[in-house]
């Protein structure tokens, strides 16, 4: 090569440099975030946003229902969790991780809901009339779930934020929080807004999304909120709408209601749905039921996993049920250990127990002793022989019922005993419908106390119904049991320390 070749080589090397790749900088960074280009004219896609909210609400941490329910006299904290047991003893600690976790879980669901509503609004802007109507229905369903979140937050903490936007930037500026009553009124008003947009069918009649919520779910939530407000006429009106629709029926077999055959029954108004999709392996939607399960058992089907033994029906509840001569409901609600049966018998008058009080369940699972829990919750138990072969997790494929028709009937009945006007069905009739399914003889002339007792028997271990009933009627004596002493200061949990750190308004 000669000297001037140098410049030829050099220029050849420089050409691609000069005509280089500057334009690459204008290409968008390629990554796996795909929303930038959501096409809101594809209005049928708004369904996806709705399903996303259902998923968020189904996706519940195990500690949430336990914390909501544990303070009642129907159930005790068992197992090895000290902060959880302290809560059961009404000793509250703002550092308790469960408080913070549950608080965040509810608000996270609320933000997911709000974002979905804002998204659906964008589809609605592009939609034709039927699309708009569809969108309004989806928004109404989301409002039901969002209302339930607010309902539980207010029940647990009293004054809480009402959040109907995904924009959290203004929260820090809030000077006063709405009261518990204002939140309940918000819940009720939201349901009034939602009801006209919703189909007037049972959730299990939904063909698009079986089990998704309907107008009657909204009425149920409205009734719950008004019950907290002690606005009993509104309770009677809302529950009356459900009753007079004639669509709902109590599932005949109380035991199976909480198991696979009872999934999405005609009794169900709000049900968290989980599924193994009929397969022994592979994808599943699941709730962690292990905290409810007995720590030690000999399952009828081997390999079925035991649980953690955290949720123990109280001796008080069992005695109460035995006193009433309950069979089906006691059998369904409680799993007995041999030690637990012995413990029941310790109390004079209970030496002889009916045969069904046994540590072998009707499905043949044998519950073994564990020193930390005498009993386990039967409503959260799925017999090992109902597990799909291949699945071993405790309660796999089991749904979690949140609101059922029996509670509606009893709320209606209580409202009537408090002077509200009904829709034809009497309080006696409503209560006796519930009792008949449980093989209990009919009552007549039911009083408010009768209804509260009936709720105790029927709805024990379910979503803190009992605890909040007792708070509502200020019956602290019932909550002062087995060494506990309850007073008005113990109704609400303290705000989680981490939330106080982040939102100073909570320290006021």
């Amino acid at each position, binding site marked *: 090569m000669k000297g001037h070749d140098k410049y030829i*080589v050099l220029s050849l090397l420089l050409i691609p440099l000069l005509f*280089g790749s*500057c334009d*690459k*900088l204008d290409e968008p*960074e*390629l*990554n*796996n*975030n795909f*929303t*930038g280009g959501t096409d809101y004219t594809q209005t049928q896609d708004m369904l996806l946003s709705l*399903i*996303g909210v*259902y*998923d*968020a609400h189904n996706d519940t941490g195990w500690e949430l229902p336990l914390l909501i329910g544990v303070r009642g006299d129907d159930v005790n904290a068992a197992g*090895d969790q*000290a*902060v959880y047991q302290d809560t059961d003893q009404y000793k509250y*600690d703002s*550092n308790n*991780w469960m408080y*913070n976790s549950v*608080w*965040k879980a509810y608000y*996270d669901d609320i*933000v*997911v809901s709000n*974002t979905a509503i804002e998204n659906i609004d964008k589809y609605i802007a592009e939609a034709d009339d039927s699309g708009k109507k569809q969108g309004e229905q989806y928004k109404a369903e989301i409002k039901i779930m969002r209302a339930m979140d607010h309902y539980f937050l207010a029940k647990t903490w009293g004054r809480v934020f009402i959040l109907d936007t995904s924009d*959290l930037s203004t*929260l820090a500026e809030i000077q006063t929080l709405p009261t518990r009553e204002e939140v309940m009124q918000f819940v009720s008003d939201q349901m009034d807004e939602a009801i006209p947009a919703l189909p007037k069918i049972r959730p299990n009649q939904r063909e698009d999304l079986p089990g*998704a919520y309907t107008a009657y779910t909204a009425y149920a939530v409205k009734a719950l909120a008004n019950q907290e407000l002690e606005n009993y006429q509104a309770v009677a009106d809302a529950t009356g709408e459900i009753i007079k629709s004639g669509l709902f029926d109590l599932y005949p077999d109380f035991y199976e209601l909480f198991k696979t055959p009872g*999934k999405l029954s005609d009794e169900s108004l709000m049900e968290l*749905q*989980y*599924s193994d*999709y009929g397969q*022994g*392996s*592979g*994808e599943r*939607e699941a709730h962690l039921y292990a905290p409810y*399960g007995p*720590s*030690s058992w000999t399952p009828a089907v081997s*390999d079925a*996993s*035991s649980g953690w*033994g955290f949720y123990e029906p109280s001796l008080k509840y069992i005695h109460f049920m035995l006193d009433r001569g309950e069979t089906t409901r006691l059998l369904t609600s409680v799993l007995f250990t041999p030690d637990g049966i012995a413990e029941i018998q310790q109390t004079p008058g209970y030496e002889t127990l009916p045969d069904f009080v046994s540590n072998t369940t009707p499905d043949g699972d044998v519950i073994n002793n564990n*020193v*930390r829990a005498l009993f386990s919750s039967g409503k959260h138990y799925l017999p090992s022989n109902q597990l799909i072969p*291949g699945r*071993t997790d405790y309660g796999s494929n089991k749904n979690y019922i949140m609101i059922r028709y029996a509670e509606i009937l009893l709320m209606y009945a209580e409202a009537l005993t408090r002077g509200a006007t009904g829709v034809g069905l009497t309080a006696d009739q409503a209560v006796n419908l519930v009792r008949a399914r449980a093989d209990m003889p009919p009552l007549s002339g039911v009083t408010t106390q009768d209804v509260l007792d009936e709720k105790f028997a029927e709805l024990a271990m379910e979503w803190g119904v009992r605890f909040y009933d007792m708070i509502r009627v200020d019956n602290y004596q019932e909550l002062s049991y087995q060494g506990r002493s309850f007073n008005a200061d113990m109704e609400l949990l303290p705000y989680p320390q*981490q*939330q*106080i*750190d*982040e*939102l100073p308004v909570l320290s006021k």
Partner: protein
Amino acid sequence: MKNHLLTLLLFFCLSAFGQQTITGVVSDDQNMPLPGASVLIKGTTTGTQTDFNGNYSLEANQGDTLVFSYVGMETQEVVVGSNSTINVQLAISASELEEVVVVGYGTQKSKDLTSAISTVQAEDIEKTPAAQPMQALQGKVAGLQIVNNGSPGESPTVRIRGVGSYNTGESGPLYVVDGGFYDDINFLNPSDIKTISVLKDASAAAIYGVRAANGVVLIETKGGTFNQKPEFRYDGYTGYQIAQNVVKMANTQQFVQYINETGLAADNQFVDNAIARYGRSRLDPNLPDVNTDWYDEIIRPAVITNHNIAMSGGGENAKYSIGVNYFSQEGLLNMKNEYERFNLRSNIDFNVTDWLTVGGSMVLSNASKYRPEASAWRKAYYAVPLLPVHDPLNTEAVPIDYANSQDLGYRSSQNPFSLLSFSENKDKIRNVMANFYAEIAIIPDRLTFRTAYNHNFETIETREVRFPYTMGGNEVRVNSELVKRNATISNQIWDNTLTYDNSFGKHNVTLLAGASFRDESFEMLQAKGIGFPYNNGEQAYYLDQSQTIDVDAVGDDGRREYGLSYFGRIAYNFDGRYLLYGTFRADGTNKYQEKWGYFPTVGAGWVLSEESFFPQSDVVNFLKLRGSWGKLGNDNVASSDGAFTSSVVTTAFGDVMYSGIQTSSAFTYLRWEVTEEYNLGLSARLFDSNLSVEFDYFRRDTKDAVIPVARPLVPESLRQNVGQIRNQGFEVALNWNKVVSDDFSYSIGGNFSTLDNEILDLGGQQYLNFGSSDFQRRSIVGETLFAFYGLETTGVYQNDAEIQADPIAVDNALVPGDFKFKDRNQDGVINGDDRTVLGSFIPTFNYGFNVNLNYKNWDFSLAALGQGGNKILNRKRGEYRYTPDTNIDRDFFINRWHGEGTSNSYPSSLGLRKPWNYQLNSFYIEDGDFFRIQNITLGYTIKNDKIPQTRVYVTAEKPLTVFSYNGFNPEVADGFDNQTYPVPAVYTLGVNIKF
């Protein structure tokens, strides 16, 4: 073909006219001939090397300048005159000041530097028997913190001058290997490395602009030398790794005593159950006949082996270096946990003409890594000693009769062996690093154009296998599971630079201008199969042999980014006295909304010892003051956070799967973080240049720091560019080198550095919480990042009188043996308002020192290091709040409060179970100070004409670590010790052969 090429080259060489043959002898100042000295015609690549007797011969023209050089000697230039014999005597180089330091897209002489650069040479890197080159740097460079990761094949955490980025995972330096950019260099074989240069300050690193905010580590791989006869080297070692400082746990007797002291019915029942199931101890009938030391069960001694073969050399126009390396290391964890790597390497440079040089280097690395089930360490910490490994009574357990503590009544199965026996995590990592360049001397010795193309192609094939088993209780895996994940990384860089180098009288100038284009891509695909015929062995480990493909576990991800940069540098010195330095880089990227960032730096130096007024003496041979300022960017943060991203979710309606979308409204665009740094330094050589001193003070501010800002009410946080973080400190490095005689030389070195980390601003907020509220870490303006935040323990209540006297104790129903907390706001209540900063995970000082002795055929070296001022959150002890069914460590047992006066800092046995005591408090925060003998090597070189030069050596790596922390290892990168892999001591025997 090759011969033709050579002939052609020869022809070009000969075609010049007026040449004569110059011969001569090159010797040292003692008149001893220097074999292998380089003789080069200045401005060309024509040259030769002296033979064994120091003789050389080459063709040159009158007027040509011959450059004579030899390692450790001052370079000398002689102009060819009429005399055809030129003998030269080279003087011993004053110091390493003449050494050439790699500075990024070029080199500089050490004495001309204005910034803080530390260089570590091959021989220091090779001393450490480890797979990862950076491990060898621990304790050797002031201001560099290396935190080991004990698991084979895992990279250590590397921090240069502290933590500048809020997200500690993004605080690692940029590695530049032969021009290519890497986040991690664990594919490199340490013995292929010629030098590692740590560019510590912003001024040194700024030429790398946006990638440089956390410092830059430049790595040169070994190349050949022109006119050097072939050199063959074999290096090999093999040895054992032994776990060090294994935490002592309570044995059965101690555990049972602790349980008895709690008085808890359930826990005592479990002890009785163990006695019933496993029998009574003959020594003590109150104990079960089991005493399992779980760490002892899961730890094994592990083998480490390395073989390295390299050849290098060069002729007149070509030089080469090729090598093969095999490395294997077992992990300490008793499962399939090992790392194996096979590397091929070549490096070739070729002078095509007197103005064109081309070359290329390639590293092909092929590694397989079996990752540990790291949570086994944690399980072993918690497992109770009264559970045996095997339990023949556990008939449910299939295929191995592992004991299950649920059979004793405990909530979980505890036995870590299910993790060890029924899982296998394999990564097959293949890495190709290719680098090709052409260099054109446009004006010989003055103006050079260089174009270099660098490609790093990496594939990681992951195969995670889970075998079915049953242990009874709730520990069951019915189906075999198989996860396959393939990731491909392809990073390309094309650099073009123009370098101009000239002297005008006393003015010396080097100018550099360049452009760089970057293309980085990442792709990943994964799937999970359930129920494959695992009994058929590896040939069945394929997804399509599975019964089911888990749709939820299918993953697909990718990313592609481009970057374009322009940069320049000016290095000027006047008479070697006044130094000026500046670089500028404009970085463009398609990653951020803000496409361009500009990163300048300036530096200046003053070599006092060159001034006429400076007294000439043997005490101070060289003295330089230097200062610099620079600005850097960090694009290691994502382009946005949260995003209006949608994720696909599935949920069930009526037992049918439906897909939906969850949209996150939380979104922010992020910009690059910007770091600004001032560095003031002093370099000196004292006492006949035997002592070198480097002193640096730095102040580094990260602006626009990307900080996760918690969103109120909801779990997630959103990262925003809102913070300002300052790191400042000083670094001193002293090295004393003395050649006493031909037989004896020694060197002693030490370094010390301090670091003060402080948050200057958090976008107007006073503090930001980090991590779970149970173990709160909080960043507060004026404090360090992620400080541990909790209650201050002032003692332990000793007796009832003390309880009665304290209203706080009465209100909270405390008993003797519970903690006393400081009521900081003195309101008579202990609550969140009484929390305070309990310490930081960032060490405030680091030090290291080393000694090297050479006597006749013997060589000895010792290196030690330490750090202090940091705290560790002993998270393992914090587990009791979630699971009290666990063992306790022996330190706790021995020191627990068990009666008045027994302890004023540890709670009682029952106290350990009380929520009051496990609020985060100073009990859980421990000192992280440690001192370690890092490496001791003793070698003997056999010098015998009949056999090649052979050195045999023994090494003890990390044989001794002294610390007070209750864990395996005080090296916890983020100070949050949930489970660390122990760092082993390594004892090896090695041999180096060279001919």
